[in-house]
């Protein structure tokens, strides 16, 4: 696993191991914010940002602090604290540096702490045994994969909001049926993209 090329890790993160459609991580925003394209774009930006930062931070903490001291069992607690404080930090920095971006990301940032996409992808990093460059790439790729799916979904739902369907299908079930079709496409990417090269 460790000798995987960066490009391969990138493809893995975006398509083959897509966060939402294959790993089932971050389904709450997937159903919650995809009613319109604008809020899903905001959410995706925030996720890309935090996932990438979190993979850097957790890699450093795990490799240089927890692993040498034999404290691997503390990883859940320490990672969730790291992610929560990272989100706070990002919020402070953005508010100071770029109020425009802060206003557009505003309400999505706090939601990310309890978004399993972030914690999930950093835990997957550790399980896969990636090195530093691979971890960062995988984090970024996971964020990009999340964005692609969220935007496709938001587009579909916006378009289909005028379609007449039976009242019991409207809303959440309708979204899940779209997800079924999208997922069918993504589940076959592993045949298209060669791994381990």
């Amino acid at each position, binding site marked *: 696993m460790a000798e995987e090329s960066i490009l391969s890790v990138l493809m893995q993160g975006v398509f083959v191991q897509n966060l939402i459609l294959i*790993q089932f991580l971050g*389904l*709450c925003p997937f*159903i919650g914010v995809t009613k319109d394209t604008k809020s899903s774009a905001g959410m995706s930006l925030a996720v890309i940002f935090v996932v990438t930062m979190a993979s850097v931070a957790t890699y450093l903490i795990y490799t240089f602090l927890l692993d040498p001291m034999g404290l691997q069992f503390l990883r*859940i607690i320490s990672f969730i604290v790291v992610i929560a404080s990272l989100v706070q930090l990002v919020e402070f920095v953005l508010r100071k540096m770029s109020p425009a971006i802060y206003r557009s990301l505003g309400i999505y940032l706090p939601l990310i702490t309890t978004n399993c996409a972030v914690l999930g992808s950093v835990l997957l990093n550790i399980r896969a045994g990636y090195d530093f460059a691979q971890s960062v790439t995988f984090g970024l790729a996971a964020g990009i994969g999340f964005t692609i799916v969220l935007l496709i979904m938001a587009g579909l739902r916006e378009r289909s909001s005028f379609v007449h369907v039976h009242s*019991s299908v409207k809303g*959440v*079930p309708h979204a899940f049926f779209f997800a079924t079709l999208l997922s069918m496409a993504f589940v076959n990417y592993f045949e298209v993209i060669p791994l381990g090269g």
Partner: protein
Amino acid sequence: MGVWDEFLRGITRDNPIFGLVLGLCPTLAVTTTLENAIGMSAATAFVLICSNVLISTFRKQIPAVVRIPIFIMTIATFVTIISMVMEAYFPSMFAALGVFLSLIVVNCVIMGRAEAYASRNNTLYSFIDALGISAGFLVALGVMGSIRELLGTGEIVTFGYQLISVPIDPVDYMIFPPGAFLTIGVLMMFVNHYKAKKLERGE
């Protein structure tokens, strides 16, 4: 409200998956077989019951400003305990649930119950609420797992016992991710239909 009603509420009206629509990630990810669904529900139930009891017992001592970090730390501690226990005693289940065992910590059901129920009610009622919600979670995951395993492999095998076997052509897609989305979509459809019917009758 009676204790029994509180318990039943967790299975029906406040069912975490079909009523509150919380905690979808594990519901879709680990329901490839009935066995995994039961294992996941058991682990979640342990964390939910322990955190609800602990938080409701100390609800007067927890300062309101820092309650969210305290809740998260409490939940994370119990998740660490259950994942270590599972790794030691049920290694195959631990491997099957994988990263989702650790992800119980960000399961919105547990955080939601801590915030909405345990921080406002006494220990006994919080315990009953946790039991009810856990039972509701088990029912939802069990139904999902049974449907997917039955259609995906043609039989349901749980802890070494073959419960049911039907002579159908197994559909691999039901075990893969699309099957999960399809199953929950169809189930949600029935739930919506039932709710609408109930509303019409004015209940």
